[in-house]
């Protein structure tokens, strides 16, 4: 296999990797916010349920969660799964897992807001929703951005876990080429691909951070 073919194959795998990455991000960021609301709920029962959810998601390996999501329907309910469920299962697994982490990041941001801001908003006649959307959330986003960047970069690398469901993302393909060609070269190429991807993510996140720095 010549180098161009390896690049092409890994390139097609990269596309799948980007697919997992974007879907996970787009779905788990909003879901994380909802979960953080649940976690901070004044209703004790709701708070405990979400606390338990986060504890499970953070306390078990993502690879195991992927296997459960994909094979669970058959082993728990006897439903035959088809090959087209593979990608859906991967996205569900990643989103559920990452939403739990994002929820805790949101919570750290929201709970760090001084109570005085709520009081001031109340005096100015803001409703609770208005207070949150117009005053609290913009500050929270600013504050949590570095932690979110951390998670996002981890996500890029975690996409390789999809190999446990034999999804043809970049790392799976790198492994297959390596086996057929009996060489370690595809891994080097894969490493470069991941690095470039993460560099891009880091640059974009830095840009966002800078543009949020409007008080300086």
């Amino acid at each position, binding site marked *: *296999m*010549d180098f*161009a*073919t390896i690049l*092409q*194959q890994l*390139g*097609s*795998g*990269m*596309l*799948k990797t*980007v*697919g997992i990455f*974007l879907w996970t*991000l*787009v779905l788990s960021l909003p879901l994380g916010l909802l979960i953080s609301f649940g976690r901070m709920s004044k209703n004790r029962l709701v708070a405990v349920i979400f606390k338990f959810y986060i504890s499970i998601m953070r306390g078990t390996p993502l690879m195991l969660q992927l*296997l459960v999501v994909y*094979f669970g*329907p*058959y*082993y728990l309910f006897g439903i*035959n*799964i*088809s*090959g*087209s*469920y*593979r990608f859906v299962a991967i996205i569900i697994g990643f989103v559920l897992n990452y939403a739990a982490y994002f929820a805790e990041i949101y919570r750290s941001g929201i709970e760090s807001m001084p109570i005085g801001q709520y009081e001031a908003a109340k005096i100015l006649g803001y409703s609770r929703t208005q207070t949150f959307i*117009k005053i609290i959330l*913009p500050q929270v*986003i600013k504050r949590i951005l570095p932690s979110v960047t951390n998670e996002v970069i981890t996500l890029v690398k975690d996409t390789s876990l999809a*190999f*446990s*469901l*034999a999804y*043809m993302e970049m790392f*799976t*393909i790198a*492994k*297959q*080429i*390596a*086996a*057929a*060609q*009996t060489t*370690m070269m595809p891994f080097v190429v894969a490493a470069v691909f991941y690095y470039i991807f993460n560099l*891009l993510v880091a640059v*974009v996140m830095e*840009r*966002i951070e800078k*543009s*949020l720095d*409007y008080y300086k």
Partner: protein
Amino acid sequence: MMKKTLALLLCGVMSMALLTGCGNDGAETANTDGTNETAEDAKEASDDKEAEDQASGERTTFTVGFDAEYPPYGYMDDNGEYTGFDLELAQAVCDMEGWELVKTPIDWDSKDMELNSGSIDCIWNGFTMNGREDDYTWSDPYCDNSQVIVVAKDSGITSLSDLAGKTVGVQAASAALDVLSDEEQQKALADTFGALQQFPDYNSAFTELMAGSLDAIAIDIGVANYQIESRGEGYLVLEESLNSEQYAIGFKLGNEELRDIVNADVKKLAEDGTVAELAEKYGISDQICLE
């Protein structure tokens, strides 16, 4: 303030779009550059078909699960397509039946889950039937195999007894591992090893053998020959083998209907010489046991 937040959100969305855009461009160049349809595209197309055929109840596809890191039986060829002795034979069967072959690479550790849950129709990939007779509905064996030990040429290991105290590598969930952990087979030998190290794939095992952190590898003879041929000099297959066994196609327990169809087709393919031709191509002629 509100405007700025909005501008920011837009900025975020746009950078996302940029990222996606880049990705898509990559795909297009990949597709136009390559004259070959990638294995990937083929698989996806058939995933859709599969859904359709399940709805109508008629079999139009045949989904083979295989370990894509298992040459010469199933692997990715120089053009990035899945091929191998077993896959070509499966293709021949599909041609006879008018099915579309769906090549689904699986994680070998999850093969039972893939098969039982119905995401694949059979495991056809140098699949050893000995010791697993009751776990699957088997076709007739088509290939003789033996588990052998590969060592570095200059290691000084020439017989199984030399392996005492050495570190031996084996693929996780493989037949070689079964042989080495079965009391009635080579468990006694395995107990003399210094350590029995499990690997996810043979590529990393061979790299460790080269690097010296591993003294020997227990492996299927066909795979051993492929590895040694593509890696060149410096390896030795011990003459004493661990056992002899047979490859067959594994179907979900109780799926005799599909098994019988495939079995009959493989027999016909053996009679008209297709099997021998393929075996020749992949260098495993000595091992074929179909008459």
